[in-house]
């Protein structure tokens, strides 16, 4: 099982992407997608870093919904800021201490932070496990850190149980 399917999630992703790229047009593509989904993970097995194994599905779907909604809010927020007076904007660098030490989950958190309102992640300091964030308009750094931790980090820790 593990030798034939070293990365089940990757296999499923490859299968779906191939089907979608060909608009599910013919049954031949389903066979080809199946072959690629089995073959590619085996061939590229040695390139992939270790990942947390167990993934809880229900919190993942909930987090996906939250992030999707926040992307919409983020764009509207940036739009308002861009069109309004720029002098009153208060940008700042903020450091968010992380409660986990997993490179994969950290990367996921950094990407989510980049897409959601007011913040772009700059770097994860691997020696101290601190996420450096640039915030576009910050009134109170403490509230920002707290909101990142409760809104995104806690669900991520729940999903990957780390």
């Amino acid at each position, binding site marked *: 099982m593990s030798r034939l399917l070293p990365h089940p999630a990757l296999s499923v992703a490859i299968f779906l*992407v191939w*089907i*979608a*790229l*060909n*608009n*599910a*047009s013919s049954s031949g593509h389903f066979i080809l997608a199946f072959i690629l989904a089995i073959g590619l993970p085996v061939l590229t097995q040695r390139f992939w870093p270790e990942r947390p194994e167990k993934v809880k599905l229900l919190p993942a779907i909930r987090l996906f919904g939250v992030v999707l909604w926040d*992307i*919409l809010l*983020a*764009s509207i927020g*940036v*739009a308002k*800021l*861009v*069109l309004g007076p*720029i002098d009153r*904007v208060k*940008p700042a660098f903020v450091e968010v201490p992380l409660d986990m030490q997993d490179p994969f989950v950290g990367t996921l958190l*950094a*990407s*989510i932070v*980049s*897409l959601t309102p*007011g913040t*772009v*992640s*700059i*770097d994860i300091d691997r020696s101290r496990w601190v996420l450096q964030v*640039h915030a*576009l308009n910050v009134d109170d750094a403490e509230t920002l850190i707290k909101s990142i931790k409760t809104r995104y980090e806690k669900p991520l820790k729940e999903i990957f149980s780390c």
Partner: protein
Amino acid sequence: MSIWVEYLISFLILVGAGFTLLGSIGLARLPDFFMRVHGPTKTTTLGVGAMVMASAIYFTVTGDGVSLHEVVATVFLFITAPVSAHLLTKAALHIASRVGK
């Protein structure tokens, strides 16, 4: 094509073009590099996402069969936008620290 589908596609196209424009306005107007990153990563990505969704609905309605490859493009854009923003800010910070020394 029913009139409601046409309204939906038009709405998505306008929202997409609007957000794309707003992202570029942010890029041109904001005063410092780290603020400028916010515009393209969030606003432009969402704009193109909406535009691509309009295209998906349009070709599903007019063509034969579902048009799914647009979904792949949207997912790709949303995965890559934070990565390029991250690398660019990291590079900018690196250069700033080198100049500062």
